[in-house]
């Protein structure tokens, strides 16, 4: 069985790491540089760094800040937030990103995924989808930091995104985000069922058991989490030890 990646996710606003719930509210939980260094030391496999208000405020993420926090951290960075052009991707890569996550702009301009993949390679392009369960049992994709319903079916969009050239899918459950009540397994399984590219799951991690389940049952290739790490419910190291004991391959330091 291949190694599953454990990835802390930092939601960034201005100079701070914040932790929304249901993608709402901006409670400050830490300093990006400090948290990234801590997670790097603890054995994070990658870092996800998302400016969650860039699209809402219709601006770019702070590339200078990104540069300063990626310094000295030698694991892959996936960076997102207001990525709208080839130029933005270049700026992100030059500031330390290895991959970019795109949500809002990609939904409005799906061809941008193909353009980006052609220019930088599929492995550089992560399609980020924030999904909310609808009363009819489907999931709708949201943009602008979980605030605008797009009218697009999230699962169908994941499929399309792959066909357009996304190298990975990052699927977030708005319903579970920040709640620590567990990942949305139903949503995740719908996507991992057909996904031929790696799927990073996010939203709701509350316990090591839930991470185990999303890997075994949900077939996630990578599990991202935020609250549990930022609030120190358990460390990345402890989580990996637990997963290893449960016969899940993870990279141990």
């Amino acid at each position: 069985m291949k190694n599953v990646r454990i990835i802390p996710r930092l939601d960034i606003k201005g100079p701070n790491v914040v932790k929304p719930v249901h993608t709402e509210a901006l409670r400050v939980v830490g300093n990006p540089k400090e948290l990234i260094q801590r997670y790097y030391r603890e054995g994070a496999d990658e870092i996800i760094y998302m400016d969650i208000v860039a699209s809402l405020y219709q601006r770019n993420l702070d590339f200078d800040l990104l540069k300063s926090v990626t310094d000295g951290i030698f694991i892959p960075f996936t960076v997102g937030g207001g990525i709208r052009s080839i130029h933005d991707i270049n700026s992100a890569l030059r500031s330390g990103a290895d991959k970019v996550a795109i949500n809002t702009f990609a939904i409005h301009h799906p061809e941008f995924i193909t353009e980006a993949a052609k220019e930088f390679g599929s492995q550089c392009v992560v399609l980020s989808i924030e999904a909310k369960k609808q009363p009819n049992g489907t999931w709708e994709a949201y943009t602008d930091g979980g605030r605008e319903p797009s009218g697009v079916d999230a699962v169908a969009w994941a499929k399309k995104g792959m066909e357009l050239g996304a190298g990975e899918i990052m699927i977030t459950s708005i319903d579970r985000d920040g709640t620590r009540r567990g990942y949305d397994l139903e949503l995740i399984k719908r996507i991992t069922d057909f996904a031929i590219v790696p799927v990073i799951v996010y939203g709701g991690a509350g316990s090591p058991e839930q991470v185990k389940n999303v890997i075994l049952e949900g077939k996630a290739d990578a599990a991202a989490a935020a609250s549990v790490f930022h609030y120190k419910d358990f460390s990345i190291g402890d989580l990996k030890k637990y997963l290893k004991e449960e016969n899940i391959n993870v990279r141990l330091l």
Partner: protein
Amino acid sequence: MTKNKPKIVIVDYGVGNLHSLVKAFQFFNADVSVSEEATIVKAADAVVLPGVGSFEAGMRGLKVRDLVGVVKESADADKPMLGICLGAQLMLAKGYEFGEFNGLDIMPGKVVRFPEAKTGDKVPHIGWNSVYAGKEKTWDNSALRNLPQNFNAYFVHSYILVPDSKDQILGLTNYGGYEFCSIMKKGNVYASQFHPEKSGTVGLEIIKNFIQSI
């Protein structure tokens, strides 16, 4: 008398993200620069060939900058060289991504797509995986010296190195039930499928070893 630091040049041929690579070398206070100029690459004491993307795009990037010649000469002269990911793949003779293309032919071999994974694991191979030495292989006197067997490194690729000469296989990795060559060595020239600059402290160790060998 102070010895001049060796000049390490990272070749910029228009593909890939060089930022982390530069940072990794700077971590050791190496004299590292990025260049697409053939003259500068030629004058380097050691060459790093990075890159992500398609084989064809990589070769095109080198050709259009007249870098093919200097890179090959560098390797022929057994100057320390580190090819990473696409850079490593280009060092082989032939690449079969979206067609058949000639590589730099620094080491005999070809680049092909991952065969059908036995365990249903996905391609591209993205993530951490362990690197181990082949039977009767030692890592002493190589950039992997002092590293533990089965160290973890970061991979992101859909195509793999298939060297002609077993002697040039330095490290192996298993993915999807399939064993492939994850790093090659010919003299001072290395072709690494994984990204040492993205592989945490163990990757830094490899870079340090490489620098020290110059």
